[in-house]
């Protein structure tokens, strides 16, 4: 059922079994899992069903360090969250993404890819993806024209699938609103979290809205699912009972903010012009591949995991950098600018062969405690301190990027396909600076990182805050490393895993 919190009494008290804060990708995925579960689920969404600029403004904040998108337009604040404008890129994380890598400080998850595999399968339908198949051979059997430019023990072809893209706000509105046990409150912005006296469990959360209404929600379990930046902001702002904020005994909350570096990096020149259909991003949104470096070779060279997508060079050269196109505080205007930059006449013609392609990187950034979300002194209109992002990269990202293209260049030469040319900012191996067109993928990860030990992270392997008995985090804020792939599929899988965990606790009556 749906309740508009603006129409409630000035101060309302509600009670449920589980309170999910945030109705975006993670929050809605979790709520869907609990339909007809017998539990009373309170789902709190800060916005309504449509975009509202006043609500969106609650996401505004400052950025320092590496140039970044305006925080206000880097996410969407309404039912469905950022799926309202995402582009639908999905792939699994690789086993190496979860491993402790000696050359990458703070790497290693307390879970493995294997632990997530069954949940990846279950995440697929939520994102309206095809079969859970990410093996190149599977797709080649269906289309023999999907021929890799190189595929060997050094460079492999990582498959991406494309969601339509699912707009969670539209796709899941009806089942959630119709579910008798799901109590969706829109315009319920959580601004504070109240713990018990010992600070060992959460008693309630307090939500507010522009109508001046206040909502107090009690539950057995609380799940914060309101995005990587907002999850950290909420914990840090819950500082009335403990100055550092909740779950922040070891000063990890907000730290290790990660993004995928998304940046033009090199050119691939072919000896024989080719369509390279395997790598095409076309209107049918069929699966495509990106060039990736094998785990063994990543280990050998002590580099980060990243992939290269291919775009015909004459098309890519006309496109402006994404960070320049997405510069408006208003996400609608930034989206218009981005779409204009990728307009139809800029796209390659079907079946056309090309001699040269741009190689565009998506690469994980190393977990870095200095890259972080903190609270600003400025507060938003509901009285909550705004977020501040200080995005910081390390020399490992630059070195890895350069090595990836050296490796791809070597393998392309080895198979006689052509040559690779690195862009100028990668020429000097001692240059650690980044060009102005360096951008991210709006992939916010890592501010409540998962760890075995409270001294090295915020949540345990079940996504529970180490120091709290009933407070869980859902979404990419739990990621310990960023991986090479877009995070949505993995964050849904991780959320479904959390959901199962909570179901087993609920079934056993654990409170």
């Amino acid at each position, binding site marked *: 059922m749906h309740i508009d919190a603006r129409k409630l009494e000035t101060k309302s008290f509600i009670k449920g079994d589980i309170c999910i804060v945030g109705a975006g990708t993670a929050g809605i995925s979790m709520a869907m899992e609990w339909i007809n579960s017998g539990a009373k689920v309170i789902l709190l969404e800060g916005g309504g069903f449509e975009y509202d600029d006043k609500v969106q403004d609650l996401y505004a904040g400052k950025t320092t360090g590496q140039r970044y998108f305006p925080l206000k337009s880097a996410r969407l604040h309404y039912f469905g969250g950022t799926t309202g404008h995402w582009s639908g890129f999905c792939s699994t994380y690789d086993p190496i993404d979860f491993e402790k890598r000696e050359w990458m400080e703070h790497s290693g998850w307390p879970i493995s890819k294997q632990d997530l595999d069954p949940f990846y399968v279950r995440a697929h339908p939520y994102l309206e993806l095809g079969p859970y198949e990410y093996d190149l051979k599977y797709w080649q059997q269906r289309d023999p024209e999907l021929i890799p430019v190189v595929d060997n023990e050094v460079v492999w072809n990582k498959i991406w699938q494309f969601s339509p893209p699912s707009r969670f706000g539209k796709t899941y509105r009806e089942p959630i609103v119709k579910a008798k046990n799901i109590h969706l409150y829109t315009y319920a912005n959580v601004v504070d979290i109240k713990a018990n006296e010992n600070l060992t469990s959460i008693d309630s959360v307090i939500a507010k809205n522009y109508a001046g209404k206040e909502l107090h929600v009690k539950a057995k379990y609380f799940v914060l699912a309101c995005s990587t930046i907002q999850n950290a902001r909420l914990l840090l702002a819950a500082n009335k009972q403990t100055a550092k904020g909740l779950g922040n005994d070891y000063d990890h909350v907000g730290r290790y903010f990660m993004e995928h570096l998304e940046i033009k990096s090199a050119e691939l020149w072919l000896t024989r012009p080719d369509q390279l259909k395997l790598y095409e991003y076309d209107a049918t949104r069929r699966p495509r591949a990106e060039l990736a470096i094998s785990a063994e070779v990543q280990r050998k060279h002590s580099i980060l995991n990243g992939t290269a997508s291919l775009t015909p060079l004459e098309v890519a050269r006309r496109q402006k950098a994404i960070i320049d196109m997405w510069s408006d505080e208003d996400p609608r205007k930034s989206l218009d600018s981005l779409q204009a930059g990728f307009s139809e006449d800029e796209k390659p013609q079907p079946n056309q062969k090309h001699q040269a392609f741009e190689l565009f990187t998506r690469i994980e950034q190393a977990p870095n405690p200095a890259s972080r979300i903190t609270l600003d002194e400025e507060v938003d209109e509901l009285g909550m301190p705004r977020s501040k992002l200080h995005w910081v990269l390390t020399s490992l990202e630059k070195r890895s990027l350069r090595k990836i293209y*050296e490796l791809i260049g*070597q393998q392309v*030469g*080895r198979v006689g396909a052509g040559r690779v040319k690195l862009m100028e900012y990668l020429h000097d191996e001692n240059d650690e600076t980044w060009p102005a067109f360096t951008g991210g993928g709006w992939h916010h990860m890592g501010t409540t990182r998962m760890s075995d030990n409270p001294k090295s992270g915020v949540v345990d392997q079940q996504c529970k805050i180490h120091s709290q008995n009933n407070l869980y985090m859902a979404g990419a804020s739990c990621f310990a490393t960023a991986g090479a792939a877009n995070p949505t599929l993995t964050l849904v899988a991780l959320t479904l895993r959390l959901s199962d965990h909570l179901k087993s606790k609920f079934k056993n009556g654990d409170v």
Partner: protein
Amino acid sequence: MKRRKFIWLSGTGIAVATLPWLTSCQSSQWTPILSVPSVLGQFCSETELMAIGNSYIERVPKESKISAIEKQLLKAEAGNPFDPSSEKSLQDFISKMNDRDFSTDQTIILNGWVLSQTEARQCALFFLTHTS
């Protein structure tokens, strides 16, 4: 940027048993063939090839003479004997050297291009023959 596809120069009478030129600074009868990297030549303008060659010499100053580079380029190896009997055999020889370089990661990044050691030397030769 202007790019051009290089056409192999037609060699004539490449059949010499001894290689006295290897110790000199002058170009040899093989230089026109050796100084054009066949694959890279498809993608780069002459100016760009010159710049790459110049970068190689700056990086490896001991190979700043034509003779020194040709000596390196024509080093025969097991399985790939130097056979100067024809233009074709010379091209095949260089082609195999390129393949060997890429297979054994003997590559070098010059002006952004990931090149085999052999074709980097070819660019250097191209630079030297056009500036000397």
